[in-house]
């Protein structure tokens, strides 16, 4: 069996989040070495604080300090630590009911093994030496007697309450393209462009996705397409895209309608002035040198003008489909 094409796909959410006054007060407290909760309308103290009363939905903002020691309500053991975990070794994870609070909070339990964990055990906070207004200002909770008290926050007269926090999320995927995409990408390595033909009406789709989206049916038949076509639509980009140092502005992205295909696909148009690009302009693929070809659509560097007469605007782009349908209705051969 051929080794399937695969790639690492990383999705990141590097957001800076606005905290608002309640969560902001909690994070400000952590920065300053205090744990802050909020009192609900029925008098319960919730840590970390929530902005709305869980029972009534009413806005609540009566802040209350609680102790940085308490009792383990439930726990589990994380071994090995998860990829996104802030701890680099196996650790407990538990809900801790802090003295003065009515609702337990989640945090790490810093012990060496499950033998050192029990529901009901007393724990106290291990504070980070440097604190920024983040849940990790607390390193976690350790058995009572082994906690680390907060070093005084080097208070700057200019210290403002915490108003935002960065909590980036990263997720890793092992992306394996569909069988149709695998075939499409491998064909690129041989300078061939493939599409799928619809079993219903013969329409040709590129890139092939194994499906005719008009009819919702599988489309397995592969068709090799020409390396020439026309510009169905385009736009000119004048602003650089972060991370795309290979693109010098201005550049033209275009919907390329290959001869024999019934939908367009995205490509760059170059080899002529930006102001010369127009709908209907005939173009052909400019490939990478043969010794640089790989299973990737990047093999086509860009599309350049052929110099042939334009496709009339009324028959260009997605209108080409209608034109071909009309021709079929008139008894002409499909795909001609």
């Amino acid at each position, binding site marked *: 069996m051929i080794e399937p094409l695969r790639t690492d796909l990383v999705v990141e959410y590097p957001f800076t989040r606005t905290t608002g006054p309640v969560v902001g007060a909690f994070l400000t407290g952590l920065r300053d070495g205090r744990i802050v909760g909020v009192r609900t309308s029925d008098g319960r103290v919730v840590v970390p604080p929530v902005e709305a009363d*869980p029972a009534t939905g009413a806005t609540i903002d009566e802040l209350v300090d609680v102790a940085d020691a308490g009792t383990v309500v439930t*726990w589990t053991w994380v071994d090995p630590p998860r990829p996104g975990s802030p701890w680099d070794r196996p650790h407990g994870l538990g*809900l801790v009911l802090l003295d003065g609070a009515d609702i337990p909070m989640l945090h790490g339990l810093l012990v060496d093994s*499950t033998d050192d964990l029990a529901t009901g055990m007393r724990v106290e906070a291990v504070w980070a030496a440097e604190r920024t207004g983040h849940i990790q200002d607390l390193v976690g909770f350790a058995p009572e007697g082994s906690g680390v008290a907060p070093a005084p926050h080097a208070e700057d007269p200019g210290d403002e309450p915490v108003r935002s926090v960065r909590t980036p999320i990263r997720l890793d995927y092992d992306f394996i393209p569909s*069988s149709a995409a695998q075939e499409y990408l491998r064909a690129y390595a041989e300078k061939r462009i493939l599409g799928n033909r619809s079993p219903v009406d013969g329409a040709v789709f590129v890139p092939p996705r194994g499906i005719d989206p008009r009819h919702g*049916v599988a489309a397995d038949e592969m068709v090799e397409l020409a390396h020439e076509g026309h510009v169905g639509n385009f736009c000119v980009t004048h602003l650089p895209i972060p991370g795309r140092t290979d693109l010098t502005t201005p550049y033209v992205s275009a919907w390329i309608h290959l001869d024999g295909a019934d939908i367009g696909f995205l490509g760059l148009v170059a080899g002529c002035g930006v102001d010369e690009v127009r709908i209907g302009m005939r173009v052909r693929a400019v490939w990478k040198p043969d010794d640089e070809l790989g299973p990737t659509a990047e093999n086509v560097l860009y599309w350049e003008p052929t110099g042939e007469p334009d496709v009339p605007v009324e028959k260009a782009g997605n209108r080409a489909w209608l034109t071909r349908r009309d021709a079929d209705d008139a008894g002409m051969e499909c795909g001609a």
Partner: protein
Amino acid sequence: MTLGWSAVREVAVVSSAVHQVEALTFTPDVQLMVPLVNAAREAVGITQDDVDFTCSGSSDFLAGQAFSFVQTLDAVGAVPPISESHVEMDGAFALYEAWVKIQTGEAEVALVYSYGKSSPGSRRDVLAAQLDPYVVGPLWPDAHAVAALQARVVLESGAATPEDLAAVAARSQRKAVGNPNALRASADATVDGVLAEPVVTDPLRPSDLAAEADGGCAMVLAAGDRARALCERPAWITGIDHRIDPQALGLRDLARAPSAAMAAERAGAAGDRIDVAELHVASTAQAIVLSGELGLTDDVEVDPSGGSLAGDVLMAAGLVRIAEVARRISSGTADRGLAHASSGPCLQQNLVCIMEGE
């Protein structure tokens, strides 16, 4: 048939199709759904032209791709344009939207589908991203850890013993025998066998955690006489309700799921005897919690398919539960059933769907 408090029209499940496997390595969502959508429609002899409303459920987080559901819509054949909606939730909640749409009179026939392909990523870690992103998410409590925190509360509350959890796991594995969509099935499963497994996420063993699967489910709903014309014995939805508890893990007793009890009451679960129930759980401990909240008595057959413990497609497991109950009603092996779907951590959100034969 008596309709529940919120229903004004008779709506029934008239067909469904399910597919679950360990990993759909080369099959993208859209190719998974083409045969399922077609099977559900063809079972009742309709095409997309007969469908007034289409609603789907899926998660972009699983696909690692924004608006991934738009590509999957290609499986339906959405040309010319159709009336369509999507929820970033389990398909059971898409079904609820479709049911509401039919209640309003804007649709007679609806197509509902959902799918999940979690195998390209680490599902237990992707699920950490559903938690509060300010003060919980950064500690990265993965789904197994969260399930374990709840399970310990259930055990230490006295609601169940480790043997009780193992009995739930063994029951699921035995019942899953014969279910082609089950990933974890064994005619020989026993309590002792489960208890002999090593603890992986204390206090849980592998069999305590739902077996992760890739797959999907498609279903056709129809109103009144249209349903009767399409299907010999429609599974009438006599009540459906969705309730939510606070998300923060500490804000409620994790041995309880008040929203499940409320949804069951609102859906009219107690109105008559229940022959069969299918539960959407992430762990055996959740099955114990639900059994109490839903008031399931010993004479109810729970999880005849093995339930979600035997095969759990994230975003479809709830809709599959509805499909499993509906299928048994339509085939005449049950007269009245309860299907449950959940969302969020530790049974935070619960939907109960009561179905009856005529």
